């Protein structure tokens, strides 16, 4: 009988080999043709932002959308539990969830009134 943690150790080893192996293999056998886009700093899906020189204004719509999405996302995560247990949680669960929805709506009202959704 081996120690029950041995499989976890093996899994960790495999993960390490995969991670280092991937990096190593691409460093050794990967083509090295650089162009401007490749050398740019990576900023998840948008143009790398300029530095704050000469006013340095940059659009923040991307961040607004990202944050809005994340909050809706989390909201749904919580709603799923409630939906599955709707009848067991009864009135208490209903009121609690409605309160949660109200609380989570407040920031959207703020965002809306402050022009967060005006992307023209």
């Amino acid at each position, binding site marked *: 009988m081996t120690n029950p943690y041995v499989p976890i150790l093996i899994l960790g080893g495999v993960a390490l080999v995969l991670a280092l192996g991937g990096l190593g293999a691409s460093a050794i056998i990967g083509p090295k043709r650089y162009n401007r886009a490749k050398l740019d700093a990576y900023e998840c899906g948008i143009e790398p932002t300029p530095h*704050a020189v000469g006013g340095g204004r940059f659009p923040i719509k991307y961040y607004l959308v990202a944050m809005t999405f994340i909050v809706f996302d989390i909201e749904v995560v919580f709603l799923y539990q409630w939906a599955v247990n709707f009848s067991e949680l009864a009135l208490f669960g209903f009121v609690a969830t409605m309160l949660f929805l109200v609380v989570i709506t407040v920031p959207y*009202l703020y965002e*809306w009134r402050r022009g967060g959704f005006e992307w023209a």
Partner: protein
Amino acid sequence: MSYAAPHIGWLQIAPLAIVLGTGLVGVLVEAFVPRRARRTTQLVLVFAALVAALLLIVAQWRDTMASGGVSLFGGSYLLDGPALAIQGTLVVLSILAVAVFADRTSVGQDAFAPAAAAVPGSDYEELARRKGLEQTEVYPLAMFGLGGMLLIVAAGDLLTLFVALEALSMPLYVLTGLARRRRLLSQEASLKYLLLGSFASALLLFGAALLYGFSGSLHLGEIAAATGTIAGLEGLLLGGMTLLLIGLFFKVGAVPFHAWTPDVYVGAPTPVTGFMAATTKIAAFGAMVRVVYVVGPSLQWDLEPMLWTVAILTMVVGTVVALVQTDVKRMLAYSSIAHAGFVLVGVLAFSTEGIASVLFYLVVYGLATIGAFAVVTLVRQTRTGAEGTVILGEATHLAQWAGLGRRSPWLAGALSLFLLSFAGIPLTAGFAGKFTVFTAAADGGAVPLVVVGVIASAAAVFFYVRLIVLMYFTPEREEEGEEGVTVVTSSGFTTVVIAVAAIGTVLLGVLPGPLLELLGQAVKFLP
């Protein structure tokens, strides 16, 4: 399987609900109330809510002390004596701190950036300043932060503790970055605080996971019970406790987890510095005392080496580094680190006297801290140019404070009082605080700690008194060209805060008895 709705003690959660609810309403105010009326609306809301919360806390004091408190939400919210006492302290100090937020002084500007989203030095920032915009979101942010603090001191399980810790930290990260002057420094402080704070939160969470692995429960009481019944998993238990405490050490700024403190205290707008130096530390100590006293007793011998080391390091490093500071805010930051060490000495008494002394010390420390930082907000730099004398940001360099006692005797007198209280000179509240803490610790067998504490206090007198000597006995610096220093007049709020803090400091110094007796009732933790 049937689900039973938890019992909700509406009266017991009312102060917390009011504070958080006001934060939410404050956000709606920002959304729907016309710009001109926002500040007034926010102020009315915030002060009404804080006073209501305080009254509700006072109203349930007697019942809570008599019954020992109640356990709500299945033990996640434990409103016992210490929790209620610290909640009361937090609300009182928040009233004072938020009043400093509201002060526009004779310059007509508050301490916050007119448009926090503007890039520092940009045209938009200049436009916002000229239009006289104000970032009144600071009030809801302060309320959310206070809500987290009220929750953390009553948190009965590690998950609630973590959520409360995040709820109190997040608004502070934002508030730190909102300074009107020296905005880059302020934003740098905000980022540092966020990064190090997240790191500490992660450690705390890791500790919670280990403790769950040890005991199969997140409730502090059940973890404490498991220490007596489960054998052979001490590694998980001690590792978990250590990481949990490190997370809290970080929030109170104990050495070696203090590195963020000076930069953040200096970079943050001074009213915010006062708010977080006082309330965050108190809230984190509230949580720490609960953890140490509920789970700790059976581990006292295992945890003591670490706790003692941290306490001694905190007192020594805080004091020694404060000696060489040349910036008032930075000096006060290191002094607050040293004070965290003194409170830790009280925590390590491991007795009910220890709890009472910690509660008392926190009140005393909070009053003097908010008072001292409120004074700092009023001493300003000036520059004389072609268009006359312009009043700039705070004059925080020590040399700029020379001769202040002659120009503004009241202000310098109040600051001297707070400094003497920090130093622990008799007849100020600080003396009563240090005396009770050291007595409790000595009775609890922590004599070496008390010796270090007394030596550190004696050394600390030097830098507090140095500032007093500078204000009263050093001639004013010659005006060098166009740079100067002036004292602006408060628009009322800060004056009241300084007066209240000063009166409280004297009163608690001369007559500490009644408050000590009151807090002496509030020393029993619910398991």
